[in-house]
């Protein structure tokens, strides 16, 4: 039996739900776009066109929750990586769209590029606990108007796992539809297999971006799943209480669910969140805190409460550099979500409050994920059918070293063998040059990048994508 923890009890789930419904019905939300308000007005929401706001009644929320699919599969370009939702286990995704990269060669922080994203996603391809990609940095070397298309297609080329990204305007939609159709074997195959999805973040508190939401509604023609990721920060863009901030995030998620389901009932949606706490001295966002772990776990529980695929931001760190602070913060912001049974925790590979990619960190986080998974797998069934008989066979003062059960255990999942954490004695460790977990990760990154791209796209498809991007560069400039 898997180990679980409750971060939001049954009655508290009802309380969060009720508080969220009151927020939606009494305060409502502001919508900047063109498409959402007419949809909401037609469906019976109280819309103030001049203020751009809508109050959403309970009935609309209930109707939306009734049409949102309970199960579907996050497809992958290579079907071996398909990930059915909901999942009996927790798996992971890389963090997305940081501004910066810690340069692998110089160690200096600089703006991210297309190459950084490609390299990171090639590393992610080898991270066995990761099931979902996301361009981890914004590609500062790509033209602004078509940048997200470069990032999206770069991800498709670099990994055959499920990939999510974003779009910023409706003008970008036709290019993405064409790119996904080219890479996914036609629009029908993309609709059927869901190999790619988009991530949508309402702007806390209670605001919906215009061009992005409109673009995502247009993308309904490909039935692209939408991961809905509200991001209120307790104390700044959200109320300074874990319960209250959780309720606000949940309200924002529900509002997005309503809009997407009104536009296209049955469109696959993924409940998610990426809450934060604030530094009470500077007002800065903090992601690597125990409170974020708790809120994320509570929100994953709300996703389950609604019967939806439930994921959560996490594995976050505010540390300025890779190292022990990053590891502590990441562990404390992934363990709660995994214990709460989240389908995916999103956050591999980044530090500095989701703003800096570190290639080695992807593999360090993968190692952390293995530790978390081992913990959750729990004590399991007894390895020997009769414990007393096995103990009697050794007797007082003997040892178990050569027992068949011990030999089996050495090869089993019952005892985790880490890949990056060394278990040398002190002298041996010194003689080896004092290797570190990050050092081993670095070596592995070098090996991966020196090897071939796994599951490369056919050359003809690469060429078609290049042609499409050139057109987008010119037409979206």
């Amino acid at each position: 039996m898997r180990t679980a923890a409750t971060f939001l009890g049954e009655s508290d789930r009802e309380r969060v739900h009720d508080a969220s419904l009151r927020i939606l019905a009494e305060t409502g939300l502001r919508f900047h776009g063109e498409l959402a308000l007419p949809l909401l007005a037609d469906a019976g929401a109280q819309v103030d066109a001049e203020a751009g706001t809508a109050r959403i009644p309970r009935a609309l929320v209930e109707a939306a929750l009734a049409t949102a699919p309970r199960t579907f599969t996050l497809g992958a370009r290579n079907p071996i990586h398909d990930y059915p939702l909901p999942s009996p286990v927790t798996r992971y995704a890389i963090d997305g769209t940081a501004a910066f990269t810690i340069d692998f060669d110089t160690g200096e922080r600089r703006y991210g590029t297309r190459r950084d994203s490609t390299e990171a996603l090639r590393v992610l391809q080898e991270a066995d606990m990761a099931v979902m990609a996301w361009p981890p940095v914004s590609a500062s070397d790509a033209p602004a108007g078509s940048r997200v298309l470069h990032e999206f297609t770069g991800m498709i080329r670099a990994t055959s796992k499920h990939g999510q990204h974003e779009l910023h305007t409706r003008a970008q939609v036709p290019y993405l539809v064409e790119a996904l159709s080219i890479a996914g074997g036609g629009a029908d195959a993309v609709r059927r297999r869901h190999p790619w999805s988009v991530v949508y973040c309402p702007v806390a508190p209670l605001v919906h971006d215009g061009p992005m939401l409109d673009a995502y509604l247009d993308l309904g023609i490909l039935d692209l799943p939408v991961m809905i990721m509200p991001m209120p920060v307790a104390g700044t863009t959200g109320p300074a209480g874990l319960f209250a901030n959780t309720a606000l995030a949940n309200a924002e998620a529900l509002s997005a669910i309503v809009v997407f389901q009104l536009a296209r009932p049955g469109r696959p949606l993924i409940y998610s969140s990426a809450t934060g706490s604030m530094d009470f001295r500077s007002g800065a966002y903090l992601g690597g805190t125990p409170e974020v772990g708790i809120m994320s776990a509570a929100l994953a529980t709300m996703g389950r409460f609604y019967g939806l695929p439930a994921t959560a931001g996490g594995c976050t760190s505010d540390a300025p550099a890779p190292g022990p602070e990053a590891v502590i913060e990441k562990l404390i912001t992934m363990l709660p979500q995994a214990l709460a049974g989240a389908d995916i925790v999103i956050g591999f590979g980044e530090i500095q409050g989701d703003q800096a990619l570190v290639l080695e960190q992807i593999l360090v986080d993968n190692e952390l994920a293995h530790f978390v998974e081992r913990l959750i797998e729990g004590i399991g069934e007894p390895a020997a059918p009769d414990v007393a008989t096995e103990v009697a066979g050794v007797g007082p003062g003997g040892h178990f070293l050569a027992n068949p059960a011990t030999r089996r255990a050495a090869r089993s999942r019952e005892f985790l063998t880490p890949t990056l954490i060394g278990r040398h004695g002190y002298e041996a460790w010194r003689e080896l040059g004092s290797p570190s977990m990050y050092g081993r990760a670095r070596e592995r990154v070098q090996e991966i990048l020196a090897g071939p791209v796994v599951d490369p796209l056919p050359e003809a498809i690469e060429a078609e994508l290049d042609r499409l991007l050139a057109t987008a560069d010119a037409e979206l400039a």
Partner: protein
Amino acid sequence: MTQELFDAMRQSVIDGDDEEAIELAKEALADGIDPLEAIDGGYVPGIRHVGDAFRTGELFLPDMMAAARAMQRAIAILEPEMLARASKRQVVGRAVIGTAKGDIHEIGKNLVGMMLTADGFEVFDLGVDVSPERFVEKVREVDADVVGVSALLTTTMVGQRAVIEALKAAGLRDGVKVLVGGAPVNRAWADEIGADGFGEDAVDAVAVTRTLLGV
């Protein structure tokens, strides 16, 4: 009697009690007290106390925000009378702030605005998704000393450059300092686009602004 009122005003700011601060402002008007005297004798000592306690770590940022809000709301009550008397409050400087075109994330900008207000600046907040032209217009209108342009997204930070270019085109660039900030913004970007300063957070933004203006 007046000193008692001023003491109460000071305390209302320290407590971050905006309702009390407003009531006291109304009381001052009813008593015929010069609004400038009420601000300088009552509310300003309160915000100074809070600022000092914040700098020594005794108070937190939310305490500072509440104090600034209380003072802002009290001053709003006093403003019509100040206008009637044609009196103008002494301020440290005038700041025009907003988020870059296309960006609707405003929390960072709001924090900077409140902190500048608390520090004695007059702040003109243009809100979100602000065009370069609107920045230029406001800078000209209020004779601003500093412009703050915030951007949360890598795709909208280019709007910070656009504001600087627009100020240049309008012949206003030499008369105003430009400060940029936001999660994807760093010092190198500020240098590249020709900004005068970069604030890593709201507290830093105020310190940089003061340094730039030499106040």
